[in-house]
């Protein structure tokens, strides 16, 4: 199976072509093609995972095969290849599983949409690109698919292109990611300039022996800019909340579970580069930690259900990046996996609610738990998992990150992480209490979603409960003996950290109940007491405004000036030359008197002068 692993991204790619060229007009067939393709990939991923486990393929001895995609002998060799180690296998499993479920879910959710077939073609294209990204064995290839997933993200965010906001959000996502990719590209250019290869394993052996760490640190920092964009870390996070303009299954798949995690995956892939550079690791850790905190504070004040989840995603991605930064690659990847399940579940649940109510503002919902039992109960399970309530998935993974931060001596980040855990349960249960319980708003007619939508919810709910156990401390040969950097290690349970984080999570839920679980005017009071902080949070720290100002005033302003310069100064000079020629012509034409005999006289005089010049030595003539 491993030797055929390259087929995994090929199936969705073929599905994409089939949908675009053949089944476009038959909606359900398109969906079926997409589902079958990703399903096949999913089955193959299970096979790969099984073989990795059975055959003892580990991080040190992965399977790699490649062919030269583009080569210039002696100068450049770009491979298209497959690198399979446990990291790949786990990612493949997670991505194909979530993608498969989201595809099924979309049949119900997108039912009756005009762009139904294109939606499935984009999903298939995304699947192919994302799986290609995971399998990549070199920086070039990862970059190749990195851009392609960005494209799919752009297309899917702008899926409802008749809405200005959706089109603009797509543009914003693409351009923001472009900025990051610019850095990423420069980063691996430097690596290529130093080492002459893009291949991860060749780099892994070469990097530890390289002396000029300052230069290498620049490269690593630039490479990290890529994840800052793709995994939406501060300060390039602005695109992700706006990306919620896309259809909800897309938010679940791309903007929560898989694509945004690609940045974290890249960090894991390139971990050898970062691990040797403590300064860069510090940057990574603090960017991640800050994003986690920063996004969580915004989430508390938002009222759009998808935006709350988006900020929650930002915050959790921050956790993962922070885990990478403190050196716990295992914890970061573990959290990536569990987060993929419960965050996908949250989004799909939100999608189910939006589908039923056609409403996204949580303050206009309320009391819908009676109508949508499956959706609401799975949503709550996912929220508990996210908050880190034992024994759900999030508890184990988040705990490992916090313990990792503490063990590696980042006490500050540990405290920050714990605060974020508190904020997480606060904003999640604020959402739940406001939207699901409390008084029912008039005019809302909730109804449970169709089976195609609830089935994925149930499966993901099961996964949100159990997936944490693969990495739990009491499991021998768990996640940490599979995916690791350096030495495989066993997780030692840190009961202190566990206890505190559980307490904090429960405290968050309690505070949420106090504030929002029952009729209370405390939230309004707080709002009026601290208007500055409230406005800051509700307006997302005004970062969008700053960027818009930069773009509108500075960049466009300069562009207008340049345009004026081009049209008037540069063109003016050249037109001026033209005008000068014409003007001199206007003056010179007066020589043309029109008098025949004047011309004849001039000609004759010229002949005489030339003759004299040629004939007479006096004038320096030639006939001497």
């Amino acid at each position, binding site marked *: 199976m491993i030797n055929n692993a390259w087929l995994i991204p090929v199936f969705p790619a073929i599905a994409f072509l089939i949908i675009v060229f053949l089944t476009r007009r038959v909606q359900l067939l398109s969906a079926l093609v997409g589902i079958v393709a990703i399903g096949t990939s999913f089955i193959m991923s299970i096979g790969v995972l099984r073989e990795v486990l059975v055959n003892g393929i580990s991080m040190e001895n992965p399977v790699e095969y490649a062919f030269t995609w583009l080569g210039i002998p002696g100068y450049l060799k770009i491979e298209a290849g497959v690198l399979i180690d446990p990291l790949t296998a786990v990612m493949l499993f997670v991505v194909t599983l979530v993608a498969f479920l989201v595809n099924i879910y979309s049949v119900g959710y997108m039912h009756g949409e005009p762009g139904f077939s294109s939606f499935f073609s984009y999903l298939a294209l995304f699947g192919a690109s994302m799986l290609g990204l995971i399998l990549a064995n070199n920086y070039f290839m990862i970059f190749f698919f990195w851009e392609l997933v960005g494209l799919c993200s752009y297309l899917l965010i702008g899926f409802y292109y008749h809405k200005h906001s959706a089109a603009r959000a797509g543009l914003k996502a693409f351009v923001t990611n472009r900025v990051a990719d610019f850095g990423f590209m420069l980063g691996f250019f430097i690596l290529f300039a130093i080492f002459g290869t893009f291949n991860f394993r060749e780099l892994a052996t070469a990097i530890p022996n390289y002396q000029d760490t300052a230069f290498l640190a620049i490269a690593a920092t630039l490479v990290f800019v890529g994840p800052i964009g793709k995994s939406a870390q501060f300060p390039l996070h602005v695109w992700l909340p706006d990306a919620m303009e896309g259809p909800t299954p897309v938010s679940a798949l791309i903007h929560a579970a898989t694509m945004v995690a690609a940045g974290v995956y890249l960090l894991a892939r390139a971990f050898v580069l970062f691990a040797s550079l403590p300064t860069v690791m510090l940057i990574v850790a603090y960017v991640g930690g800050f994003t986690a905190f920063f996004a969580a504070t915004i989430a508390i004040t938002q009222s759009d259900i998808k935006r709350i989840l988006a900020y929650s995603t930002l915050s959790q991605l921050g956790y993962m990046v922070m885990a990478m930064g403190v050196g716990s690659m295992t914890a970061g990847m573990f959290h990536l996996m569990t987060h993929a399940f419960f965050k996908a579940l949250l989004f799909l649940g939100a999608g189910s609610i939006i589908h039923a109510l056609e409403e996204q503002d949580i303050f206009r919902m309320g009391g819908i738990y009676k109508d949508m039992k499956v959706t609401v109960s799975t949503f709550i399970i996912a929220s508990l998992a996210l908050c880190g309530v034992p024994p759900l998935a999030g508890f184990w993974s988040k705990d490992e990150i916090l313990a990792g931060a503490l063990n590696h001596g980042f006490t500050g980040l540990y405290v920050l992480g714990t605060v974020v855990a508190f904020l997480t349960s606060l904003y999640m249960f604020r959402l739940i209490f406001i939207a699901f319980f409390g008084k029912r708003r008039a005019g809302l007619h909730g109804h449970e979603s169709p089976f195609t939508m609830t089935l994925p919810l149930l499966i993901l709910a099961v996964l949100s409960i159990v997936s944490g156990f693969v990495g739990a401390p009491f499991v021998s040969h768990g996640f940490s003996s599979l995916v690791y950097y350096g030495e495989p290690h066993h997780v030692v349970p840190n009961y202190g950290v566990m206890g505190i984080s559980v307490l904090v999570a429960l405290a968050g839920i309690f505070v949420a109940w106090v504030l929002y679980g029952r009729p209370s005017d405390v939230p309004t009071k707080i709002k009026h007491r601290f208007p500055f902080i409230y406005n800051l949070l509700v307006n997302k720290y005004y970062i969008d405004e700053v960027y818009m100002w930069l773009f509108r005033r500075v960049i466009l302003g300069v562009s207008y000036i340049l345009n004026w310069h081009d049209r008037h100064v540069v063109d003016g000079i050249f037109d001026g030359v033209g005008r000068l020629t014409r003007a001199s012509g206007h003056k010179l*034409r*007066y020589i*043309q*008197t*029109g*008098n025949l*005999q004047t011309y004849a*006289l001039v000609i*004759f005089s010229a002949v005489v002068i030339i003759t004299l010049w040629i004939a007479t030595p006096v004038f320096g003539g030639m006939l001497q």
Partner: protein
Amino acid sequence: MITLNHYLALGGMLFCIGLYGALAKKNAIAILMGIELMLNAVNINLVAFNHYLEPSKVVGQVFAIFVIVVAAAEVAVGLALVLNIYRRRLESNVDDFNWLKW
């Protein structure tokens, strides 16, 4: 004894007369006549040079014949032009031939 110089002097005088006529006369026909005089002066020079310097060859004569032919063509074209202009404008004074002027 008539030497080359006599011929050259004749040619020179004829040329100057022709030049004067071409530059000073106002009538187009007179100008054409002046030009003919100049060409004939040249012919005299050519034939004279040939006779005195290279009597064995007839290059000068050949050239002179060419000049005569060209002159004939030129007169034909020139007269045709003058005639046409005269018909349209009832004018053969070159001072009024100024439509090409700016």
